[in-house]
């Protein structure tokens, strides 16, 4: 961890660049603010614009663990917080029973309870782990896929940085974890949650920035190849009719694929063979091919 990484947005931006994450001025400022004001950072944007990667980069530069909670439809608090290991508890009960002689009943229940709901039967899930292991980065990925109840639960945790477990008491974080929430806007999040967070909308990068990202992430790749792929992706991305515009993540995958084949230039055959790294729909591949022919002809 750089001692001065967090003194200002500029130093943070430089420290992120060292982890090969290139943040523009806006994103660096907002991230720095989230850290300084101890607020969660809510990132929205198209898939593949680097929302998840930012959380990874922050964890890397702060040199703290990254704890990830992937949200899905129907996720419940118990899957995010903690659960008890029921089969083992039942086994324990039976074992105690087999050994039990003549203890008075009242005492036995209390003892048993204390034994059963002990740390060793507790299965900590991401949010609880984040509170216990702070300082750390907690990534709540695709919060929009969870439902309202879960959002409300999360809001509570993010406001107090503590949860209470009936059997164990309150678990509170000494230092709040750095929380990054990502959303693909499949639904509108509640305003209460948004108010708690700092909000940033991430756009796809422009040509020069995307090229810089590819060069930073894949330093071994030849500049000409990187430039050709990025130029092509940029052209295609502006095409309104694309089913699924490729994100930076897809650009990187494609460049990786071409580099693995030992290519230093894009040509129609190899592009067609490797296109699946960047576009995942048949209709889109057709459009990329047209754009490629245009580019090579130009």
């Amino acid at each position, binding site marked *: 961890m750089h001692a001065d990484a967090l003194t200002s947005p500029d130093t943070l931006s430089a420290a992120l660049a060292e982890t090969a994450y290139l943040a523009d*001025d806006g994103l660096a400022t907002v991230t720095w603010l989230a850290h*300084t004001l101890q607020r969660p950072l809510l990132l*929205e944007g198209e898939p593949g614009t680097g929302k998840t990667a930012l959380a990874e980069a922050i964890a890397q530069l702060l040199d703290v663990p990254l704890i990830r909670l992937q949200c899905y439809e129907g996720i419940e608090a118990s899957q995010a917080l903690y659960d008890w290991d029921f089969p083992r*508890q039942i086994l324990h009960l039976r074992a105690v029973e087999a050994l039990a002689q003549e203890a008075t009943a009242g005492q036995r229940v209390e003892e048993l309870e204390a034994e059963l709901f002990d740390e060793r039967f507790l299965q900590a899930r991401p949010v609880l782990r984040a509170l216990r292991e702070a300082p750390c980065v907690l990534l709540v990925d695709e919060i*929009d896929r969870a439902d309202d109840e879960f959002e409300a639960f999360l809001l509570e945790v993010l406001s107090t940085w503590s949860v209470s477990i009936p059997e164990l008491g309150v678990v509170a974080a000494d230092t709040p974890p750095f929380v990054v929430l990502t959303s693909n806007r*499949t639904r509108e999040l509640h305003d209460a949650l948004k108010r708690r967070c*700092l909000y940033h*909308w991430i756009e796809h990068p422009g040509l020069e920035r995307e090229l810089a990202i590819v060069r930073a992430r894949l330093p071994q790749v030849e500049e000409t190849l990187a430039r050709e792929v990025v130029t092509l992706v940029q052209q295609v991305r502006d095409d309104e009719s694309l*089913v*699924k515009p490729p994100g930076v993540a897809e650009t990187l995958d494609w460049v990786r694929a071409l580099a693995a084949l030992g290519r230093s230039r894009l040509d129609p055959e190899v592009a067609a063979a490797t296109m699946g790294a960047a576009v995942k729909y048949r209709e889109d591949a057709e459009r990329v091919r047209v754009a490629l022919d245009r580019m090579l002809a130009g």
Partner: protein
Amino acid sequence: MSADAPDAGADGSTRPEGWGAGQVLAGFARACRGAGLPVTADRERTFLQACAAVGLGEQARVYWAGRATLTASPADLGAYDRVFGGWFGGVPLDAVSREEPPRPTTVQSPLEDGRGEDDADGQEMLHALASAQEVLRYRDVAGLSPADRAALRRQFTTLRPRPPTRRGRRHTRSRRGEVDGRATVRAHLRNLGEPTRIRWREQAVRRRGVVLLVDVSGSMSSYADALLRLAHTVVQSAPASTEVFTVGTRLTHVTRALRERDPDRALLAAGETVPDWSGGTRLGEAVEVFLRRWGRRGMARGAVVVVLSDGWERQALEALGEQMRRLRSLAHRVVWANPHRGKAGYAPVQAGIVAALPHVDDFVAGHSLATFEELLDVIARA
């Protein structure tokens, strides 16, 4: 610098001279609220904290601090930039914020001219009915007199939408399903550690999403009011899992307006958000935009999608067919409700319908209260 000319005072977006820094910032937050951004008191406080943290030396820093604290969606960015430009004279260069995610070009297509089959002479009066109210249920809403229309509006309250369901991921206690470990352990404990009955749990039932695409183009103008009222009752029955869009020359998201409880107020609010009443139709394009901006990201996935339209699509028929195919590959069921379907002599020959029909699960009528009830049944059973 892309400094917009400050909209002089139109929304209080120019800064008075001679204010202190705190006043300027607080005033800016209020100007943002005036421009329709969701600026609450706590957001304003966070904004001031953020400005204190980044310092006021660099305008770009203040810009980003404000954007992170005073906006809540990409749709807010345009207004934010305008107010910021007005107060601080321009926005940073690398803030490429677009008004909202790109929309299709909206070329006004000519109004429907030759009004073909939607002259209201096909009113089918079903005479075997008792009361006037009953009769009204079966009348085509397009041909009603103003008095009848008012009576019908009151009858909309008798519609009972039942949200469709799907199996959720959560569990509830039940008598079958899987072993509920937590409850079983707890029960054992209550019994002083003696094993007791095994408790069971099963997957709970949750609401399935419903998406309504309401055609408000020229050929549908006599139905638009009734269809939006219908949409309003559906939204009221399940506000969290229902989404409504109007379709004309463009696609407009009107769910928020229809969450207003009072139907007349909700319709007014929806009317204000829709820019293209009674224009042309671009059904294929609208479905495509819906899929790109909302549907594929999750709104259409596993949902019941209902298209309420007469299918008067003039251009791009293959496109409509293709988009409907895509829609169906995402949705749980695709329902098409057509106001002409229930009338005597109707055949699905409009080009749009022909293109879409192969990709529709249910093709139903939608011209009277009775047919709306049937449509709600179809949705509930989906």
